[in-house]
Every structure is written in C-alpha cells, then in structure tokens.
C-alpha cells in the first residue's frame, strides 16, 4: 500500500519523526503494533523495516525512528509528498488492562516510540513514566506525557538532563517506594531484561516490546523468532512479528537474548 508522507523531520540528532496519511486499517491499531515499510524501490535493502506506531491522530500516523543503517537512512531522506510503501498495523501489541490502580512505563532511548501511543490508552489513578536516554537532547515527549496525566522522571547517561544514570536503576529505586499494578517497557534488550528481572522478583506483571530482524512481518517465514519459556519449563520459539512484538516479560528467555 502506498500512503503519502505528510512530514519528515529530524526532531533530535539522528532521530526523525514522520507523519503519514492515515488509512482505514491503521485506525483500529493497538499500541505496540508496528508498520512494515519498504525503504527503497531497489533491492538495497531487500527487506521491509518494522517501526512501531508512535501516534495516530485523525489524519496521520506518526513514526519516531532513529537512523541506524541503510533502511532508516533512506527513510530519513524522503520528502513530504512522496508515497511510502507501508503495511500494517501488524503484530500483537500491549494488553491494556481496563483500569488498574497504577501503571508504569519504562522507556529507554528510541524505546519512547511506541509508548507515547500506549500512554493514550492507559487509564489508571496513578500513571508514571520513566524515560532514559544517552543525553538530554534525546529526551522526547516529556511534555506530551505530562499532558496525558503522567508523572515523568528522566535520567540521562551523561547527566545533562534529569538524573544522571540508567533508567533501569531509577526503576529499581522507584520500586522501593511504590508498586505499580503493571509495568510496560520499551528499549534496548539489556534494559528490558533488568526491568523484567526486577518485576519478576517483585511479582509485578510486566509487558515488554522486543525487536528483532524481520522478513515477512506477518508470521509466515518464522525468521524473527525468540526463545520463550513454557509453563512446564520447556522452551519454544515465538515470532516477534506475530506473537509479539509485545510479550509478557515472564515468558521471555532473557539469557538467549543478551
């Protein structure tokens, strides 16, 4: 499907936000779902690139993406008015619990992408978000979270903004004071593992959004699997694109990912 690009701006060094004209199916997307984008009309790169849905409003879908390699580079060069070959929504997103007492979002780096969309859906008496990034410039959408009624705490690796340190440490500290009813986490796998471990230890339900290389994006090729645990202790491979990208943190075999 080809959709018109409405905007494409660098919102922080190396991070772009793209607005794309909305289409029918995307309007019923759940937070945590992704779109699959063909970045080039040539064979370089050959495969589509998955990007989480960052926001959806009445006329556009927004994506927030970091330039990593050839695909995202090509994406960043696209101009408003051009058509984008895009498929979606795909995947299994976050399970939004009807109205828990409190929710917590932990977002590291470009992990902020899907959680802003998620934030719109969360209803709870107390809503907290912890955002971490390498440096202050990369802390995005603090204001948006506040508008949605979230308490926001920020860490940066270099201390240039918010607290200095890792968002995972902030999370641990936080848990000493409060116990959210549910935790949603996005970001690098090392962060996810730490959040998952902490939640596991405290018995807090936790959902994580996991990234992996994808080919088909629809569950057909079995290329994107990760190892997950069954109740009986055995492990099976599940597809990030179809069974995920959001998984219950307790079933993920973290050792296999690090």
């Amino acid at each position: 499907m080809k959709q018109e690009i409405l905007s494409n701006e660098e919102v922080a060094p190396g991070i772009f936000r793209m607005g794309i004209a909305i289409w029918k199916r995307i309007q019923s997307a759940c937070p945590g779902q992704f779109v699959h984008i063909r970045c080039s009309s040539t064979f370089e790169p050959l495969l589509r690139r998955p990007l989480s849905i960052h926001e959806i409003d009445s006329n556009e879908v927004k994506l927030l993406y970091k330039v990593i390699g050839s695909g995202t580079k090509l994406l960043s060069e696209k101009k408003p008015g051009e058509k984008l070959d895009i498929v979606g929504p795909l995947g299994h997103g976050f399970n939004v619990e009807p109205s828990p007492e409190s929710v917590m979002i932990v977002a590291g780096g470009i992990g902020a992408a899907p959680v802003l969309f998620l934030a719109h859906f969360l209803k709870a008496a107390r809503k907290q978000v912890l955002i971490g990034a390498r440096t202050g410039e990369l802390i995005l959408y603090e204001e948006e979270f506040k508008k949605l009624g979230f308490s926001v705490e920020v860490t940066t690796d270099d201390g240039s903004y918010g607290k200095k340190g890792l968002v995972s440490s902030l999370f641990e500290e936080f848990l000493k004071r409060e116990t959210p009813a549910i935790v949603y986490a996005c970001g690098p796998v090392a962060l996810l593992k730490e959040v998952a471990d902490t939640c596991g230890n405290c018995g807090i339900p936790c959902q994580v959004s996991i990234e992996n290389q994808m080919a088909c994006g629809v569950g057909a090729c079995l290329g994107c699997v990760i190892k997950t645990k069954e109740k009986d202790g055995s492990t099976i491979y599940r597809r990030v694109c179809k069974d995920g990208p959001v998984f219950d943190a307790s079933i993920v075999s973290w050792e296999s990912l690090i």
Partner: protein
Amino acid sequence: MGKPDLTVNFAGIKMRNPLMVASGTFGYGEEYEELVDVKKLGAIVLKSVTLKPRQGNPPPRIVETPAGLLNAIGLHNIGVSALIREKLPGLRNLGTPIIVSIGGETVEEFVELIEFLTDAEGISGIELNLSCPNIGKRILAQDPAAAGKLLESIRKKCRLPLIVKLSPQVTDITEIAGTCEEKGADAISLINSFPGMAIDIETRKPVLGNTTGGLTGPAIKPLALKMVWDVCRVVKIPVVGMGGVMRASDAIEFMLAGAKAIAVGTALFSNPDIIEEIVQGIEDYLVQNGFASVSQIVGNLDGS
C-alpha cells in the same frame, strides 16, 4: 483478441494461472490473508512439514545480503498431524489448490508422511523437500541414488501429484532431475536455496544461529534460471521454477526457459502485492506479444 488464457494444468493440478508461492515463505496459507488475495494465486505451497513438530534452528535465523536473504529456519514446523487437523480445514474452500511440502530424515518418515496425507481432504499435490539433512553427510537432493530409492518407496503409496524439489548445490542438476523423472515424479520444483554464510566481523561469529543458511532472492536469479533451463531440456515432466522472481519479467524469463509454473518466495516479504503484479504482467506480456495462452511461452526461447 480476447483475454489470454492463463490457466495451467500442472501435473494434474488445475491452476488459474502459473504462479505459486514457494514453500516456507507463505506459512500455512493463512498468515498473509490480510495482505494477499489467495484467490489470485495459481497454487499455494505450504511450509514444509515433518512427521513430528520441529523447533527449528536457534536465532538469528535471517540476515540480508546484497540483493539476497540468507535464512536458517531449519524446518521449524507444527508437524503433519497439526497441519491436517488445524490448518487444512480452513484452506479447503479457498478454491486455490493446496500443495503440501514434506520433509523427513528417513525413507520411513517420508512413507508415513505420505500415508498421512494421501487421503487427507483438500490437498492437490505433494512437494517432496529433498533439502533436509540426510542420514549421511549429504542431503537427499545431493544424492541421486538415495533420492531414487525414496521415490521408489513412496511413489505407489501416493495418489496425489508428486513434485520433487531439488537443491541447486549439485554438480549437475539434470542428473538427479532425470532420476526423479524415471522413478515416477510428476513434476520438478527448482530451486531451493543455495548454501551460504555470513560472518559478523565485530563478534567474529557467524551471523546465523545455525552458522550456515540458504540464500534466496534476486541475487540467485541468474543461477536458478540456468538450472531451470538445464533441467527443462532433459526432462519431459513439468517444472515449477523459482529463485529470485521479483517481478513479471523474471517470471516470464523462467517460463521462456521452460518452467510451466513459477513461484515467488522472498519477493513476498518486500512486496506482498507481487502476486497481482506478476499475474497482470504475464497477461500484459501475452497480449503485447500476441500469445493466446500462457502455455505458448513455456520453453519458447529462440536460438539456444
């Protein structure tokens, strides 16, 4: 002139057009339902199944290469019983022929698979994936004698059209293709992926969890085309050609080389609209060149 006739009778399988999807790239026929109209397809070849469910290879399972995709899925599948129980019922009434691909490690496994499938409802054909690890060092597709024996054992048991899928990593593809024809195969499927590898120079480890994998996609098209051409000149049974078909002109090249049907695999991943584009492209080509039916271009290559 009216619309050209795109229908193909492929080894007894009646297809509305010559385009199939390649095994392993279209799952069990349902995964693509929101993106692909399977009624536009000539036939669907399902992901290879084995007797028992298999976990497949450890990830990472895929890596992109220049104009290619290296994969090491490793026959991850739900097993033949689950296929029959859970997947076939939903596929039966599509009106698009279903071809079940099977893999096994021993002759006995293949025999059992055939017994399971030959009476199952809603199957139009069976594809034998001979690229599964064999007892010895080689895969069946690299061992004409072993492949011949396998065919002898299953041919009589199988009432469905039997398509044998071959590996390109052989000295002479016509040798095993000839053996398969002789031993009663109804058709040949060419080609499976080429063995390949990628290394991450930072970690100094193979990129794939399985160390090696199979290369597919446009990179291999010239190689696949040559194999199809080679085989079509020596066997009389029909051939389904595949390997890097990315657009209508690729499909037409394979048909001119002698393939009666063609399949797309990797192309689906980058462009699910490929099915309609190719079918339309073939139709346009026939019209532009004054052919009344698609069968007229099969093997219609000048000066070679």
